[in-house]
């Protein structure tokens, strides 16, 4: 293990960084929002002041002009509006005021004193000279014109919408028209209209000269929405805000236009094509003529300072972040470096950890030093522990080796098959003891009592381990001794054994025992079962038979007063299968037991195996079943096979493929052997007939595309009969079923074939069919008549 300071710092940063960024972002955006609000408020305030000063200036000019017109109108009224006086007055207005371009008096035709129907004397400036003309003519009925009609209608002076002078000049004009009454506001006493034409050049200069920041500017909008004054003179009278709002469908612009019409002031953001960039706009109305003065502030410029500020804040933040990272790295390094050093010190392999003293750490924090001390203590404790452990291991290995010797001794006590115990080939016997621990309490034994008697026994001592093993060896030795003395009397042997082992048995060990004596001449077994598992007889053509007899309780607890026994007879080829409960109780990983059903199923397949093969095959099946699960109990097997082939005079064995030609060869060989043993020809022909029919059947039903079936044939010759075993690896063919059919339905009168199996079924004895290990197995006998 190695602690990396990087890693520690990494985790610190992972936690600190998002928090830092989160807080900063909050502050940053809050600050931005508040600053912007303040800025806008400030700008609005300043602009309002600026606007009102510009409006005051403009209104001053307009008011002055209005006053001139108004005062003149008073004079005209008071002088009984004599034409001479009017002429003098309006000429005076024009010549006396620089701003005034021209002035006109238009009579009310109804009260014209000189009976001219229309009269409108007009003075105007033309290149510095004052000129005169009468605007009234036959085709110029001025009473229908706005400048005449509108003031009359509202009965007060009014400014016209701006227009360009008639001379086609580039001067933008506005006319102030004031109605004159003899009596105030009496339409019947209406005298005429006095007009004053004013150039708006001054207004354009005034508005154009207004500068806000670098690129901010002002413009003036007429009541109709026309732009009448602008820094950029090309816009004047060219753009109309009402039209623009319709063209661009800009709701914000529409709102502004509406508010302007209603004479309201406002400060709004506007982003429209008509402005070069998104801007804030402030607008307010001139009282004289309802025109609106608007101030435009490009947003970028308005916020320039704010953005500058933000940039600085971000730079400061970045510097701060770097400082924090550096701090985190250096702190984590400082914290973990002594720890890493310590880890390097402790990073040692097992041997080194014990044998080399851990160095003292003097640097680092006190926690590290404490840890260092703790490890030194741990090391010395560990060294002590290992010493003790080694001592124990040494003692254990002594016990182990002794146990191993005991195991060998126990195993060497157990007999195995040898020629000397075969009774001239009549007996096959073998056993196996697999102890759950080194040594076990199971036992089996077999030995020759005399030339035709075999003693055999299997037993299970209560408990396991050394005690059980000692008890087991006592049982074996005692029964050997008593068998020698008592001869063929199984009951006497068992009684003596019981008597001896139940004496001084303070630990109350007991043994279940199945013991028997086989008469090798007859196959008869005289046996006693003292509480042991029932053995099983395996017979060649029969199901396993369980010998369910118990005569005594297990031996060792009490001395038994009476002993009974039973007899069974083994036929030649039969086996007796004996086992301890370790077999049936063998348990796999799922907790399932092997149980006696599985034992029976297994044994059905083993009827023709030798004892050793039966034992080996059973052990393989047990291992497959438990799949490596721990063995809890000793497993002991003993198999005794009786083979009295007295009657067998010859055995014919061969295997061949299922072809007629092959069978022809076999037939000749079989016939030759039959003739040699002087067996009569009827039996011979029957045998050949049956073999031919079965093989023909195998050929007919069993042949596959790839292989001809292989037939294994064995014929046991005796004086009375021929015993035949045939195996073939073709598909299963149930002869039993087939025989049932052929015998129930005698071939119809003129059925041509299909008589083969009928012949077989009628000509053989003891026919048995099984299917096992992928083979059809047939056994039958043919009696040999005299």
């Amino acid at each position: 293990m190695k602690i990396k300071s990087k890693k520690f710092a990494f985790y610190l940063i992972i936690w600190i960084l998002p928090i830092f960024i989160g807080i900063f972002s909050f502050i940053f955006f809050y600050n931005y929002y508040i600053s912007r609000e303040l800025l806008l408020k400030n700008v609005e305030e300043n602009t309002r002041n600026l606007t009102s000063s510009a409006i005051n200036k403009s209104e001053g000019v307009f008011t002055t002009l209005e006053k001139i017109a108004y005062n003149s109108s008073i004079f005209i009224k008071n002088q009984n509006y004599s034409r001479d006086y009017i002429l003098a007055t309006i000429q005076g207005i024009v010549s006396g005021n620089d701003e005034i371009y021209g002035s006109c008096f238009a009579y009310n035709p109804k009260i014209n004193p000189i009976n001219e129907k229309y009269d409108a004397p007009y003075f105007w400036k033309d290149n510095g000279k004052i000129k005169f003309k009468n605007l009234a003519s036959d085709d110029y009925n001025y009473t229908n014109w706005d400048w005449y009609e509108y003031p009359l209608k509202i009965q007060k002076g009014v400014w016209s919408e701006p227009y360009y002078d008639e001379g086609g000049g580039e001067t933008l004009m506005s006319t102030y028209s004031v109605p004159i009454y003899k009596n105030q506001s009496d339409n019947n006493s209406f005298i005429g209209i006095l007009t004053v034409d004013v150039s708006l050049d001054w207004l354009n200069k005034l508005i154009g000269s207004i500068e806000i920041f670098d690129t901010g500017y002002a413009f003036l909008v007429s009541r109709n929405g026309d732009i009448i004054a602008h820094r950029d003179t090309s816009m004047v009278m060219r753009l109309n805000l009402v039209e623009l709002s319709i063209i661009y469908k800009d709701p914000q612009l529409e709102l502004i236009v509406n508010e302007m019409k209603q004479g309201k002031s406002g400060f709004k953001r506007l982003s429209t094509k008509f402005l070069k960039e998104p801007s804030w706009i402030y607008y307010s109305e001139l009282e004289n003529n309802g025109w609106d003065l608007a101030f435009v502030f490009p947003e970028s410029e308005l916020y320039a300072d704010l953005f500058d500020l933000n940039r600085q804040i971000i730079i400061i933040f970045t510097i701060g972040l770097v400082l924090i990272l550096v701090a985190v790295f250096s702190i984590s390094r400082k914290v973990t470096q002594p720890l890493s050093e310590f880890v390097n010190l402790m990073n040692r392999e097992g041997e080194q950890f014990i044998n080399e003293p851990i160095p003292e750490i003097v640097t680092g924090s006190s926690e590290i030093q404490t840890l260092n001390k703790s490890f030194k203590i741990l090391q010395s404790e560990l060294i002590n522990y290992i010493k003790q452990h080694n001592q124990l291991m040494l003692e254990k290995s002594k016990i182990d080796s002794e146990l191993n010797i005991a195991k060998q001794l126990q195993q060497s006590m157990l007999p195995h098959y040898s020629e000397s115990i075969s009774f001239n080939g009549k007996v096959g016997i073998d056993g196996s003891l697999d102890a759950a621990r080194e040594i076990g309490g199971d036992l089996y034994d077999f030995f020759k009592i005399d030339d035709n008697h075999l003693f055999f026994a299997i037993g299970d001592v209560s408990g396991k381990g050394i005690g059980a093993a000692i008890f087991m060896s006592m049982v074996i030795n005692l029964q050997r001794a008593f068998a020698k003395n008592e001869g063929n009397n199984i009951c006497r042997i068992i009684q003596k054994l019981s008597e001896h082992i139940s004496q001084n048995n303070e630990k109350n060990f007991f043994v279940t025992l199945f013991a028997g004596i086989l008469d090798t001449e007859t196959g008869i077994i005289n046996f006693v079962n003292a509480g042991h598992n029932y053995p099983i007889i395996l017979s060649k053509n029969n199901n396993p038979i369980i010998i369910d007899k118990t005569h005594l309780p297990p031996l060792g607890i009490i001395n038994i007063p009476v002993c009974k026994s039973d007899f069974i007879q083994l036929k030649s080829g039969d086996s007796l299968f004996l086992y301890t409960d370790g077999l049936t109780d063998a348990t796999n990983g799922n907790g399932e037991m092997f149980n006696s059903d599985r034992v029976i199923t297994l044994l059905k397949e083993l009827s023709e195996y030798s004892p050793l093969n039966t034992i080996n095959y059973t052990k393989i099946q047990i291992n497959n079943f438990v799949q490596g699960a721990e063995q809890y109990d000793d497993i002991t097997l003993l198999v005794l096979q009786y083979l009295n082939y007295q009657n067998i005079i010859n055995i014919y064995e061969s295997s061949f493929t299922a072809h007629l030609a092959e069978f022809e060869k076999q037939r000749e060989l079989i016939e030759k052997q039959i003739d040699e043993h002087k067996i009569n020809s009827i039996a011979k022909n029957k045998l050949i007939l049956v073999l031919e029919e079965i093989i023909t059947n195998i050929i007919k039903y069993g042949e596959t595309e790839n292989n001809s079936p292989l037939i294994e044939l064995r014929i046991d010759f005796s004086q009375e009969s021929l015993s035949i075993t045939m195996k073939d690896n073709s598909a299963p063919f149930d002869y039993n079923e087939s025989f049932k059919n052929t015998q129930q339905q005698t071939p119809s009168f003129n059925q041509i074939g299909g008589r083969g199996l009928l012949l077989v079924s009628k000509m053989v004895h003891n026919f048995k069919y099984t299917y096992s290990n992928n083979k059809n197995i047939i056994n039958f006998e043919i009696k040999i008549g005299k």
Partner: protein
Amino acid sequence: MEINIITKENYFLVKISGRIDASNSDEFQDKLQKSEEIAGKPIVFDFNELSYISSAGLRVLMLTYVQCSQESTKICILSPTEMVSEVLTVSGLNEMMPIFNNIEDAVKYVSE
């Protein structure tokens, strides 16, 4: 297997010696069927020297029986060995082709 067909006045006497089994039953069938002159008259199979017959041979006998019954002629067996007799009895063929131990009874049966 040897087959000897003797044409008599009222029947054919077919003498067979040796064995009839799965290996030579086809040969047996061919020889019987190719003898054109065998048609039209009953047949007496002389099995005195036939030591062995299996179901393959029975099949040929049955074929011959079916053929004869179409021509309304009869078949019988003369003097079979013990083994052959048992096979014929066990398989039920003696129901269709009776077994006689002397030629006179056999001829009498087929001539009726």
